[in-house]
């Protein structure tokens, strides 16, 4: 399933920062959090839970941990607490990750 962003982008919000998401280039607004950039990009899941259920960022304030994403090789980063940077490499996580980044068997 593909759904466009569930949000409207304000006309004055220009996207000048380039990140990559699973290898695909994605434009983001400078100053936005990683979670906001992903929500602006698509309405689809940004993560799969341990049981394989689709999830996206939820609380946007650092408490729910549904926004977990791999940032520049670091798994389990809270996307809502990190500001996008030009050239950032983001990967969607599938399932739970151990602290060393490998998928939990």
């Amino acid at each position: 399933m593909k759904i466009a962003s569930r949000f409207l982008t304000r006309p004055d919000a220009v996207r000048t920062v380039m990140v990559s998401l699973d290898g695909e280039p994605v434009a983001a607004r400078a100053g936005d959090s990683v979670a906001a950039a992903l929500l602006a990009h698509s309405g689809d899941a940004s993560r799969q839970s341990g049981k394989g259920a689709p999830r996206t960022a939820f609380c946007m304030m650092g408490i729910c941990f549904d926004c977990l994403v791999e940032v520049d090789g670091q798994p389990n980063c809270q996307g809502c607490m990190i500001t996008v940077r030009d050239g950032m490499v983001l990967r969607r996580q599938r399932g739970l990750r151990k602290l060393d980044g490998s998928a939990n068997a």
Partner: protein
Amino acid sequence: MPDADLIIVGAGPAGMAAAATAAAGGGRVLLLDEQPRAGGQIYRNVGAGGDARPWLGKDYAAGRPLVAALQAPGITAEFGATVWRIEAGPRVVWSRDGESHVCAARHVLLAGGAQERPVPFPGWTLPGVMPAGAPQILMKTSGLLPRDAVLAGSGPLLYLIAAQMIDAGAAPQALVETQGPAMMLRATRHLPRALMAAGTLAKGLGLIRKIKAAGVARHTGAAGFRAEVAGDGDIAFSFTAGGRAHRLVTPLLLTHQGVVPSTHVSRAAGAAHEWNEAQQAFQPKRDAWGATDVPGIHVAGDGAGIGGAEAAQAAGRLAACDILHRLGRLDEASRDRKAAPDRAALRRAMAIRPFLDAAYAPLPEFLAPEGDTIVCRCEEITAADIRASVDEGANGPRQVKTATRAGMGPCQGRMCDLTVRGILAACGTRPATPRARTPIKPVKLGELAALASHQET
């Protein structure tokens, strides 16, 4: 020598007001907040280009002087600084960019604010379902506005968010309210007292007028929430209201049942907590100045019990006055004199709470859900799982956690503690306050190791 006279955790209205008062009284203040800027929830990002977003309203812009006052000499503010441990001393351990720091102070003020109450129902984990405060955070910090959303739930904040969306040109397609006539009737006995806060009442009525004028469809007395995926990835939201079943299709279902104190930091610090029946939430026990039973630790603001931004500021200043007194910078009579206007402001601001708590009380179906509704989002534990563990003899949060893993995920119970408590209470037990352990936010092992070796040297 300690790093500061006072370390304040949280730069919302409570923490900012306390910092300014303590510094003006000669105290050296270290203010820590995990967000990139000061403001807290209500004034999130207000210091940064606030004028470009007039739809956030006058009350939002009112946070600017509080942020500006942090420039005072005597205040050091650190942002992006997540506090994950409070030690005896007191000492505060915080992390930024993967590196932890330990700071000692004579006093610590916990002003970590509130979080939205979790609203569990079938489908609340689906992409496209969020708490209503989340898009409001996006409206304050990003270039995004909710698209054709449905707002569902109750509470003053829900009206405010609806009004901000209308003013921003992103009106919700519907407002589905859970409060019904019976709740309003129960609340009316608190109205005489609420008139002390007539200004707040008038503001609320103004918000409701704006929502009506914008022609937003409204349902009241709604219950039986369920969200499913519609064919195109939208959310199909069904509920009952007015004796009829309804179904709305929306890209974004935004729910709200009020806010509750964020108590992980105060619980992990060892402070005694109590259950607030009217607000259906745990809160730290504190005296009239915000002092807890742990030496050196005060609490203020919504993290100590929900009162809103004006009450938070007043409570922050009261705590700062008491801390200045304990530092020997203010004698008792001067403390009491200096605190009098804030004590009066706090009483005024709190006068409306019994009315709001009763009128917009959370529905039982969200406090103690049943069946396959997920309660613990991290570990994907359902209400039926929790209830089964109670049937098998679990009678407190700790046993439920051990039996089901609910609360063992990365959010450490922030999204399920209250629901587990609600289910335990609905099953006839008198549940204790759940424990919170350090680190209260996940810290990587390497960071802990680096801190340990640093402390040994």
